[in-house]
């Protein structure tokens, strides 16, 4: 495991930017900024005509680090410790679970909690609990 430093100010500011983005998406399109919902609806079956807008939002997510690198000349550290088999299993579980539970960290954790949704509170507590349990098993059970 890689030690990381506690960054309360940067994290609070970054979080506020995420919140601003969520509020702006609601203002512009009337929709929840749930990344899993947006990403999942890029695939068929299509229920509405919002494909291009969703693709643009995802393109913005991907373009953010490219822009940061262009402007500042560097990118913050990104350490991905998991190997390919773990990444595949983790990706499948994350994608399946997010759609099955109607949302992820952004849809439930940010937008849902901000709407005081009980469903989102249950979802957020659950995924933090199983996330903590998973890390505990991997790091402390051997």
């Amino acid at each position: 495991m890689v030690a990381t430093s506690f960054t309360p100010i940067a994290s609070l500011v970054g979080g506020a930017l995420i919140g601003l983005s969520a509020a702006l998406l609601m203002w512009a399109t009337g929709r929840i900024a749930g990344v899993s919902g947006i990403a999942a609806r890029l695939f068929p079956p299509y229920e509405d005509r919002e494909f291009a807008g969703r693709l643009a939002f995802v393109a913005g997510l991907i373009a953010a680090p490219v822009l940061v690198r262009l402007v500042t000349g560097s990118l913050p550290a990104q350490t991905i410790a998991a190997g390919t088999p773990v990444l595949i299993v983790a990706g499948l579980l994350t994608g399946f679970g997010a759609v099955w539970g109607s949302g992820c960290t952004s849809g439930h954790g940010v937008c849902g909690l901000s709407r005081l949704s009980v469903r989102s509170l249950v979802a957020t507590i659950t995924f933090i609990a199983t996330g903590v349990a998973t890390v505990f098993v991997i790091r402390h059970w051997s």
Partner: protein
Amino acid sequence: MTILVQLAIGLLFGLGLIVSGMSNPAKVLNFLDLGGIPAGIWDASLAFVMAGAVAVTFVGFRQVLKLAHPFFAERFYVPTRRDIDPKIIVGPAIFGIGWGLAGFCPGPALTALGFGSTAAVIFVVAMCAGMVLARFVAQLQSSTRIAAPVHPLES
């Protein structure tokens, strides 16, 4: 125009993920590592990301939802369900295991693609496969429910 605005909003979201440190799976895993508190591994930063995001979204939504309709749409699409069904626990439980395995959730994983990381590509492809599978299974379930004949004694 709508498309450009949504691109900019996605860009802002991605910048937030990068500034906050969420785009680094190591930071996410160290936040989830409560067992690492005694060793000083625990990184509480993510709680601050959540706090900052929820505070701004809470105020933002209250202001925006006072409007008659969104700027580019005819109405708001705010979830209305309030029931606690098995899916709202099972789904996030599965999601959390995946999150704890790699330290990626959907937003940061997509943003990680722009870092040029091969690992992120592998994760995102698998994640999309999981999403498609979940939608397929959910649709299968709902269609069998409609197709199943009603039991004569129950009707």
